[in-house]
C-alpha cells in the first residue's frame, strides 16, 4: 500500500500531500499525520472525494487508511 508520511508537517501540507496521493487512483493509500485536526481534515477530504477511511492511533500520531 502506498504510504504518505505527513507527520510533523504544518497545515495545509498534510492535506496537499493527501490530495496528490489519491488523485487519479482508486488504490488504498495510508496517510500518517501528527495532530488530531490533521487526521480529521484528511478523513473529511477523503469523504468529500467519495472514499472511505479507517483511522488508528500510532505512537507519534495517527494513521488514516483511505480505501
Amino acid at each position, binding site marked *: 500500500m502506498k504510504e*504518505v*508520511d505527513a*507527520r*510533523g*508537517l*504544518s*497545515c*495545509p*501540507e498534510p*492535506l*496537499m*500531500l493527501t*490530495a496528490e496521493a489519491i488523485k487519479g487512483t482508486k488504490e488504498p493509500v495510508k496517510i500518517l499525520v*501528527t*495532530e*488530531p*485536526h490533521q487526521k*480529521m481534515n484528511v478523513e*473529511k*477530504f477523503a469523504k468529500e472525494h467519495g472514499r472511505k477511511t479507517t483511522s488508528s492511533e500510532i505512537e*507519534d500520531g495517527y494513521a488514516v487508511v483511505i480505501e
Partner: protein
Amino acid sequence: MNFSDSKKKLAIAGVVCGLVAACLAYFGNPANMAFCIACFIRDTAGALGMHQAEVVQYARPEIIGLVLGAFIISVATKEYRSTAGSSPMIRFILGMVIMIGSLVFLGCPLRMIIRMSAGDLNAWVALIGFILGIATGVFALKKGFSLGRAHLTNKMSGGVLPALMLGILILATATTLLKASETGPGSLHAPIIMSLVGGLIFGAMAQKSRMCFAGGIRDVILMRNFDLLTVIGGLFVVMLIFNIATGRFVFGFNTPGIIAHSEHLWNILGMYAVGFAAVLAGGCPLRQLILAGQGSSDSAVTVIGMFVGAALCHNFGLAASGTSMNAETQEIVAGAVPFNGKVALIICIAACFIIAFTNKREKA
C-alpha cells in the same frame, strides 16, 4: 465536543468569539481594537519594558488567556502534543514580519475583520493586500514550499510558553514591576478578570474550531474549502450587529479616533506581508498563539518573534500613527506610515519571498 466537523458548529464558534470581543469592547477595550492579537502583544511587550512607547504598555490578560485557554483545553481533550524542530529561526523571522506588517496597517487579521465590521473602509482596502499575500503564499506552497518536519519532544518544552504567560499574569497582578500606560490605547481596557476569562474562552473556542484568519482564505484559494471562512463570517456578523447597535459603526476613510490611517498602498502592503508570512508560518497571529498553547515550540518561537517585532516597531519608529482630531483647532490630522516603517516593510516582504522560494519540501 468537536467544533470543526461542521460548518454550523464553526459558525457558532465564530459567534461566541465575536460575543467575547464585543463584550470586551463594551467594557473598556479601545474602540475598534476589541481583541487584536498584534496590538495586545505589542502592549504586553511594552509592559515588559521591551519598548518605551508609554501609551501602549499593558500586560493584556487576553493574550495570556488565549495561550492558557488553548493549553488547558488541549490537555483536557488529549490534543496537547509537545513538538519542535520545524525551522524555528525562520519562524522567528516570520513572527517579526507578521508584527511589522500588522503595525504598519494597525491591526492583525482579527482586528482587520473587527475594523471591517465597524465600517472602516481602510480595513476593506487592506483585505485586498491580505488576500494577495495569502495567494502568494499558496503559490509558494504549490511550488513545494515547506519549513520541514516538527518532531515530538520532551513534554515540558511545549509547556514553557504557557508557563511564561502565567508568570506575566502573576507579575501583572501581584507586583508593580510591569509598566502600565496612564493615557492612550494602553490605558483603555476591560477589567482584568473579564479580559482573562474572555481570553480563556476565546482560546478554548479557537483551539476547538481551528479558527485561523489566514487559513480561512488560504483554504478557499487552495482547495475551494469554505469551512474556516465560516468562523470568520460568524465573528464578523456579531461584531457588525454590535457596532451598529451601540453606535460604533462609522462608514468611511479618515475617521478620527479609531486608530487607523488612510495610506492605501501601505495598508495593502502591510496586510500583504501579514498574509504571506502567515501562510508560510502555517497560521495567523491568533493561530500561532493557539498552536503554542497546545504544545508547539515552533509556534512559541513565532510568538517570541512577534514580541521582538513589536519592540522593534516602537524602538525604531516603524509603527503607523492613527488619524486623530487636533483638540485645539478641531482639524483632522491624517495618520501616516513613517519612512522607517515603509523601508522595514519592504525588507519584510523581500524576506518572505526569499523564505518562500528557498525552503523546499523533502521528497517523500
